[in-house]
């Protein structure tokens, strides 16, 4: 709802004369390309349902008239089956745009026109953009726009949104239609005769009670369809007058099936002359690829293969680049800054070198890995493969209370949590997206695994591998548990029916991938320049002042005060402080411990001190906490950016803090109970 309000308020800032055109369409119709093309605003274009989950708007010009284009999320119908559908219809009813530009995909025209059948029940002016005619032709489907236009009685403009053909004509047409006081009466789907009298009876009963701006006939139709939201609204308005309405509805419980059937019958008549279908039984390229890509075993192998290549690329290309940046950006930058700041007060050098460069610089070294992940995600999405990966993994993800589409982002989390959180954008249901984002930090990223790999052998020697494996499994177990609890618990355990469109495979549009890659990088850089800069400096200040060293800093002092908490887990205050400094970058744990225990940063001294200070149960508790702890600040900043909510960000921190500390305590105390020391 807040998104709607936002969209509404931005509309108010426009000059009164600006024309409002709402872009509407089902998922996978190329609607976002049309929007980008019109407004010049690079926005993420997707082949995976639901990329545009909040209304974005931009302005363009149509024959000298300013047009405000609002990009509404992809919706299959106006039936409030998903939050996107609710958003679209709320916008259309409450904001009443001057014209609706409906984008349809010629490769699945019948299903796409179902949305038109729904739109025609509302008092709207409509123009249709017929997209992907060329792709349809490759499939042997020939669509004639003029014939369709004549049948529907609505303007139909052929588009090739990927090459921006026809987009200008579409908006010109929309402006014409808006100027026309009465659009030619379009063809409308008819309602079955017996339902027509039912609708009349319903209208008679509800007319005085339907609140503005809901059209009465539309409200009656949605009641008959059994739409939950409208039913609740009308029931609330009617109060004691509800029972007679309810009685009518009970008699026609499955009316929706007849209504939907009627719409498709109408669609069938509309497209009969305009569309030539391919010979039946022809195997398309998509069918052939899907035989392997969605095969229970073959699909899994392909997915594993793709992930293998992706991680190989990361390690072969991303990690060396990251190291290179670390040396030439962070380290060289530090040396350079120290040189420039010679003679400056020590705090200034500290601020620049240990605060800004160490924090922001380190986060920037993540760029190559992010670039690889985002490029790969973009290509896979554009290809149409993402829906297949989700299909193959859905069963397993369901066991974790998650959606199949959560798999890829979460898996990316093993490389780095940042792209994992950003990758969750492609999950259409806001709830499922939020759950995915909240559990992502429980996927151990490379940096955390590196710390584990360094510390485990110090404490556990031969059993180090077993401990490592056990702790990674623990993370995944906790992830599953949290996923199920979040899903069943306070996010309302609605089990969404698993129905998902499998788009046609297509060659990726490299231009649009490049655009979205650039957008994500800009987002990330902005974050590094703002929130991460502030947090880095803050954390540096906390670990420096007032005493000048970390032992005598505020952080150190608080750590010492918290020693009793540490004791419950068998930990020194030094280890608590190391957990906090790992917030800047997870690898920080080790140098912090070295400084606090007064040994050189070279591992050897540290190993001796650590193994003498900590018993094995305490070490296990520490490693478990470290693995489950609050993610690094880059991840947290991304969570804030993606959820657009401080509440969820803070909740995420609280959740992970509680889980990790509880686990540490449970391990240490549990070990004491069974007499392991």
């Amino acid at each position, binding site marked *: 709802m807040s998104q709607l309000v936002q969209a509404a308020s931005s509309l108010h800032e426009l000059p009164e004369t600006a024309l409002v055109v709402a872009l509407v369409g089902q998922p996978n119709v190329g609607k976002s390309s049309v929007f980008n093309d019109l407004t010049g605003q690079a926005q993420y274009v997707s082949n995976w349902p639901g990329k545009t989950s909040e209304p974005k708007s931009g302005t363009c010009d149509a024959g000298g008239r300013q047009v405000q284009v609002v990009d509404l999320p992809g919706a*299959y*119908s106006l*039936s409030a*089956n998903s939050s996107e559908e609710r958003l679209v219809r709320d916008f259309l009813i409450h904001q009443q745009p001057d014209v609706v530009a409906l984008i349809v995909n010629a*490769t*699945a*025209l*019948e*299903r796409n026109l*179902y949305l038109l059948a729904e739109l025609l029940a509302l008092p709207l002016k409509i123009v249709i953009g017929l997209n992907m005619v060329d792709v349809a032709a490759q499939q042997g*489907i020939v669509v004639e726009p003029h014939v369709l236009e004549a049948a529907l009685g609505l303007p139909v403009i052929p588009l090739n949104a990927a090459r921006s053909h026809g987009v200008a004509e579409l908006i010109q047409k929309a402006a014409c239609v808006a100027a026309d006081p009465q659009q030619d009466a379009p063809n409308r789907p008819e309602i079955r005769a017996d339902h027509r009298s039912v609708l009349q009876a319903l209208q008679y009963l509800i007319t005085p009670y339907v609140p503005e701006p809901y059209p009465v006939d539309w409200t009656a139709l949605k009641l008959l*369809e*059994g*739409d*939950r939201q409208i039913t609740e609204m009308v029931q609330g308005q009617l109060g004691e007058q509800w029972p007679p309405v309810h009685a009518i509805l009970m008699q026609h419980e*499955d009316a*929706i*099936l007849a209504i*939907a*059937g009627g719409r*498709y*019958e109408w669609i069938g008549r509309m497209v009969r002359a305009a569309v030539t*279908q391919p010979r039946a039984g022809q195997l398309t390229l*998509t*069918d052939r690829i*899907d*035989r*392997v890509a*969605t*095969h*229970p*075993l*073959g699909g899994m192998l392909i997915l594993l293969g793709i992930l293998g290549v992706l991680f190989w690329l990361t390690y072969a290309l991303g990690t060396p680049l990251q190291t290179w940046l670390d040396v030439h950006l962070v380290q060289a930058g530090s040396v350079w800054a120290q040189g420039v700041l010679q003679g400056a007060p020590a705090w200034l050098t500290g601020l620049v070198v240990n605060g800004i460069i160490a924090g922001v610089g380190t986060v920037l070294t993540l760029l190559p890995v992010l670039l690889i992940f985002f490029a790969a995600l973009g290509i896979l999405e554009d290809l149409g493969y993402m*829906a297949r990966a989700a*299909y193959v993994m*859905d*069963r397993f993800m369901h066991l974790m209370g998650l959606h199949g589409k959560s798999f890829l982002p979460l898996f990316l989390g093993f490389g780095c949590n940042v792209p994992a959180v950003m990758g969750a954008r492609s999950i259409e249901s806001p709830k499922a997206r939020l759950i995915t984002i909240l559990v992502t930090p429980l996927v151990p990223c490379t940096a955390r695994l590196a710390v584990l790999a360094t510390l485990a052998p110090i404490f556990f020697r031969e059993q180090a591998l077993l401990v490592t494996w056990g702790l990674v499994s623990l993370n995944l177990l906790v992830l599953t548990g949290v996923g199920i609890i979040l899903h069943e618990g306070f996010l309302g355990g609605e089990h969404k*029916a*698993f*129905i*998902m*469109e*499998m*788009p*046609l495979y297509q060659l990726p549009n490299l231009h649009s991938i490049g655009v979205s890659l650039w957008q994500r990088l800009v987002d990330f850089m902005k974050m590094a320049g703002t929130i991460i800069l502030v947090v880095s400096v803050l954390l540096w200040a906390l670990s420096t002042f007032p005493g000048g060293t970390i032992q005598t800093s505020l952080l150190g002092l608080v750590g010492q005060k918290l020693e009793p908490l540490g004791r419950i887990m068998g930990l020194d205050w030094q280890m608590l402080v190391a957990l906090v400094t790992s917030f800047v970058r997870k690898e920080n744990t080790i140098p912090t411990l070295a400084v606090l225990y007064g040994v050189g940063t070279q591992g050897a001294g540290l190993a001796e001190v650590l193994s003498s200070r900590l018993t094995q149960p305490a070490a296990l508790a520490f490693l478990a906490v470290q693995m489950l702890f609050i993610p690094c600040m880059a991840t947290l900043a991304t969570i804030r950016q993606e959820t657009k909510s401080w509440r969820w960000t803070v909740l995420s921190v609280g959740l992970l803090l509680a889980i990790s500390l509880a686990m540490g305590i449970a391990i240490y105390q549990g070990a004491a109970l069974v007499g392991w020391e």
Partner: protein
Amino acid sequence: MLFKHHRHHHDRALHHGPAQELPLNQLPSGVAAQVVQVNGGHGLINRIASLGFTPGAEVTLLQNYGHGPLIASVRGSRLALGRGEAEHILVKVLEA
């Protein structure tokens, strides 16, 4: 062989007599059928129907391995659906 359509998995289901009705999840892949009825709650019926599964619609399964989700072709588009959802869609096999 691995990636061939597993038509034989459900051949049994076809020998019940002419034009028998069966839930979509029991329809063997590659066999043309027609939707007869959709059952379930309002929300589910609405979602399934608006995607094209209405009585009279022709449907063919592109994939049904007897377990896991299936892929259906209906009204010119490909839809993946869970077995539970498919169970709510009653179809009758069309004579070839």
